[in-house]
Structures are given as C-alpha cells and as structure tokens.
C-alpha cells in the first residue's frame, strides 16, 4: 500500500514537473521575455540590464531552476495588463470558478442519480428509453450551444433567469460567494446547469449500469425475500453499493469540470478564472496564462490524487487487493 502511495505521488509530481517544463520552454520558444517587458524606446543598455536582472544570460537549465524555485514560492511573474502578481490574480478569480464547478457537480448528482436509478430499475419503460437517448444526446451536444439555447429560452423568451454575471455576493472568509443570496443563486442556476450537462449524462449512465449490475445479485434478492419495502432496498442496498464508483468518477471529473468552466464562463460572463484566461490570451498577457495553466494543472493533479487515495481506502475490495 505504501509502495503504491509513493508511486502515485511520484506520478503526480511528474505530471506537474512535465507541465512546468512545457510552460517554461514554451515561454522561451515563443519569444524572449525581455522583448515583452521592455518599452519600445528602450536602449541596448536597458536591455542588457534587464536580461541580466531576469537571469536570461544564464544557461537554460539554470533559468528553469530559477523559474521553478520562484514558482514554488508562488511567484509566476506580474500581469502585463493589471500589473499585479499573476498568481494573486488567478487566486482572486478561482473561487467563482470553483463555486460554478461544484454547483455543476451537485446538479449532476441530483438530476442524474434519480434518472439513472429509474432507467436502471425499469429498463423496459418508455421513459427509461427516453432517458437513455437523452443521455446519448447529452454527450454529443456542444456545451456552448446548449448554453446559448438556455439563455434564449429562460432569459430572453421567458425572462425567468438572468443571463450574465454573478449577481449579489456575500463575503465569507474574505471571498465573495454567490450561492448565499437568492439573487446570486438565480445567477448561478443557468451556468451550473450548462456546465453540468455532460456530467448529468455520465451520472445517468453510471447509475443505470450500476443498478443493472447490482439488481440480480443475491443480497438484493435476499432483501426482497425478507419482505423489505422496495424504497428501503433501493436506498440502503442498491444506492449504497453504487455510490463508491459514482463518487470516484465524479471526483475525477471535478478537475476537468474546472477546466471546461472556461466555455461556460465566457457564455454567461461569469467572472471566474476561465474568463480571465481567455481575456489574457487575447491580450497576450503571458504570465497570467502561464500562471493559470500551472495552477489549474496542479489543482487537477491534486484532486485526482486525493480521489484515487480515498477510493483505495473506501472500497474494502480494492484495499485488500492492494495489500495482497
């Protein structure tokens, strides 16, 4: 188990290292950072001075070490546009993205699990077939277009929900949150549904497949033979057993949900880190782009690592397998 753990952690570190290397080399392949930082009327002496100050005259491996050591201290350069540290900028915007991603996950569960359960328990019914087809459609519908349709329907035609921004926020622990106010919740609803679309389909499929797998097992039939109520069998015996794979997959999906929030944020003008990265790519604000990529990849790797470890500890079968 310990060997596996160390191996898994090493693997995670390797991914972060590889990403930092790509980001660093990319930064140097695309152009000399000095050219980007210098004013157009700078003299050769200014240039030499800046190059020496940034350490650009040293060998590449040494420059990478400098870059990595300052990155570890949370310094990834200053934004050209906002003139504040890039990491600060990302961390300011990240809570909005995390809020959106978590809300999408919650939606995926509260919509996906009941539908998947129904489709799994009554596979022959028409509604189950509809759910099944709907989940296939959910995989192929382009997220951004669905976002537009949501705005068209619920904001423009019906006028029920707002189409952009976060609405009123409440400050808790020094961070603004939308889900604590009614107005904020109304703003959160459409983007969260949009972002959850793909995950809802995934949860439906997983739940349905899990139910189909568990239903014919002896312990479910035994519970039925004991005369337990159907609702109790579903809740205590079936749902509990499909929860572990479901939670694991959802946990692993959280990272990609955070990354894909870029699309949803840009449609609904949600002021998160995804919106920031798009603006930064357009403004050629390279430090912010690089900081975003490194922060999100690190986040992604850590989430996956934690989920992976939790899964090992939660599922007794996997635990025994690992120790055997």
């Amino acid at each position, binding site marked *: 188990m310990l060997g596996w753990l160390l191996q898994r952690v090493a693997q995670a570190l390797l991914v972060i290292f590889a990403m930092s290397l790509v980001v660093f080399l990319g930064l140097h392949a695309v152009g000399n950072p000095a050219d980007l930082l210098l004013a157009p009327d700078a003299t050769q002496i200014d240039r030499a001075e800046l190059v020496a100050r940034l350490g650009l005259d040293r060998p590449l491996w040494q420059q990478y070490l400098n870059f990595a050591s300052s990155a570890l201290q949370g310094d990834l350069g200053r934004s050209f546009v906002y003139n504040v540290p890039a990491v600060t900028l990302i961390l300011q915007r990240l809570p909005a993205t995390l809020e959106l991603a978590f809300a999408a996950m919650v939606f995926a569960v509260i919509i996906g699990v009941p539908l998947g359960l129904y489709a799994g328990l009554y596979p022959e019914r028409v509604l189950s077939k509809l759910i099944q087809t709907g989940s296939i459609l959910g995989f*192929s519908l382009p997220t951004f277009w669905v976002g*537009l349709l949501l705005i*068209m329907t619920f904001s*423009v035609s019906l006028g029920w929900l707002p189409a952009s921004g976060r609405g009123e926020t409440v400050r808790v622990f020094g961070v603004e949150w939308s889900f604590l106010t009614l107005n904020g919740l109304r703003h959160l609803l459409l983007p969260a549904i949009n972002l959850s679309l793909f995950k809802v389909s995934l949860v439906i499929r997983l739940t349905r497949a899990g139910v189909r797998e568990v239903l014919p097992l002896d312990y479910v039939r035994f519970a039925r033979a004991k005369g337990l109520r159907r609702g109790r069998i579903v809740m205590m015996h079936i749902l509990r057993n499909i929860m572990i794979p479901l939670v694991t997959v959802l946990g692993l999906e959280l990272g990609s949900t955070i990354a894909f929030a870029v*699309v949803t944020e840009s449609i609904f003008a949600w002021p998160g880190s995804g919106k920031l990265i798009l603006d930064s*790519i357009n403004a050629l604000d390279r430090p912010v782009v690089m900081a975003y990529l490194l922060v999100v990849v690190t986040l992604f790797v850590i989430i996956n690592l934690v989920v992976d470890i939790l899964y090992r500890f939660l599922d007794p079968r996997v635990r025994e397998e690992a120790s055997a």
Partner: protein
Amino acid sequence: MTTVPAAASARRPSSSALRRFLRAPSAWIGLGLMTLLVIGAVFAPQIAPQNPFDLAAIDVLDARMTPGSVSSTGDITYLLGTDGQGRDLFSAILYGLRTSLTVGVGSAVLAGIIGILLGLIAAWSGGFIDALIMRLVDLLMSLPSILIALLMLALLGKGIGNVVLTLVLLEWAYYARTARAQALVERKRDYFEAARGLGLPTSRILLRHVLPNCLPPLLVIGALQVARAITLEATLSFLGLGAPVTQPSLGLLIANGFQFMLSGEYWISFFPGLTLLTAIVAINLVGDRLREVLDPRALK
C-alpha cells in the same frame, strides 16, 4: 476454380461487416445525414446563393434580416435570414461546414497516421521507446482536452492552423494506444511468425501484415475522433481562438450570433448550431454502429 463459391464470399469479413452495419436504422440515418452534409460542404460554391467570404458580395444594409426575407437588391431570398454583417446565413453555414468538416477530418486523419505509426513502433520495439511513447499517451489522455488546447493556443497564437495542430496533438494518443494494444495481440499470431520467417523487412511486416489486421477498432476511433475534433474546433472558434472573423467556421458563426440573441434575433446562432449538432450526431451514429459491428465484445 475460376468461380468463387457463394459461401466463401459471404464469409469474407468486409462484406458481411458492411451488411451487418446497414442492418440498423441508426446507421442509415447517420449515413444519410452525413452524405447530405458532405454534399452541402463540397458543393458549397455551387449551392450557396452568395459567397459569404467575399466582402463585396455582402450588403450591410441587409444585416439581421429574418429567415425568408428578400435581399434589398431583390435577387436573393435569405432562407435562413442574415447575420450581423448581412451575410446570407444559409451560404455562411455551407461554407462554415466546409471549414468544420475539413478541420475535423483533416486533423483526425493526420493524428491517425502519426498515432498508428507511433503505436506500431511502441509495440514493435518495446522497452524504453515503448515506455516513453505510452507515458506521453497517458499524460495527454489524463489532462482535460480544453486545458491542452489553451496551452497550445497560448504558446502558438490563435488561428485555424494552430487549432488543427492542437487537435492532432490531442487525438494521436487515442490511435496510438489502440494500435499498440492491437499490434501486441497480432504479434502472437502465426502469420506474423511466418512473415518474419520469410525474412521480410520490419516496415513491410508492420505496414502490410500487422496494420490491416489492426484496422477495425482504429476505424471506430477515427469516426469518434472526427466528431470530437469538430466539437472542439467549434468550441475554440466560439471562444475566438480559431477561425478568422472573415472566414467563419460554424463555431464562430454561433459566437457572432450570440450578441444578437439577447435582442431576440435567435436565427443567427440557432441554425449554425443546429447544423453543428446534426453533423456531430450523424458521425456519432455511424461511429457507434461501426463499433457494434467491428467490435465483437460490444455484441454481447
């Protein structure tokens, strides 16, 4: 022995696979829609009433007209309305479809060639080269595609060419993994030993003997990757990182219509989106059916 017995020809895998493929209605629907879209894209210059990329042919006075309106000059009926610049939307969709399909198919084919070659090389050489290629595959497949796309486009700059490069980078890993797994199975077959016994050169064994036997699952991956590439290209163009404004792909058309949607002019975004959806669903239908036919495990 000049006539081939009927039973023998029926057992030929390719013909029976085709027949089984066409047995499902979903395959017909998918193929039908796909043919329609491909014809529309290929013959766009002949079908479209207007060249939407030709700024001289566009009249700004005709901007944002509802579907079915007649142009101010009276010679074009805008079947699906016009966009914010006065482009005939039907023409713009046909030309946009051209871009989307070219990018999707082109990147899938390019990634297929690279991925299959690397997969075969990994399976053949084993050891360090195998480990190196497969770890790269793992890395690419573990990270969210949008993140890699953002990284590439931030490094290379915006533009449709760079989007194709990004798609190739994202896709080759899927082919490589399958090609390698398939080739490792084929390596144990008798024909492989026989070919080696004959002393054929490695490249000939891999390309003429192993590759044809690996093809069925790779075809399925190819179909699904085309759909994935089209979606991702549309998404990136929608975000303003792909196709240039003067030559919009479907994704950019949808993005351009977005601002007018808030004032109720839905058609500028809606119809390009519907076309995009049709293309993706058609390809997925065909891909799913291909998988059912070609992958014996899916039949159970």
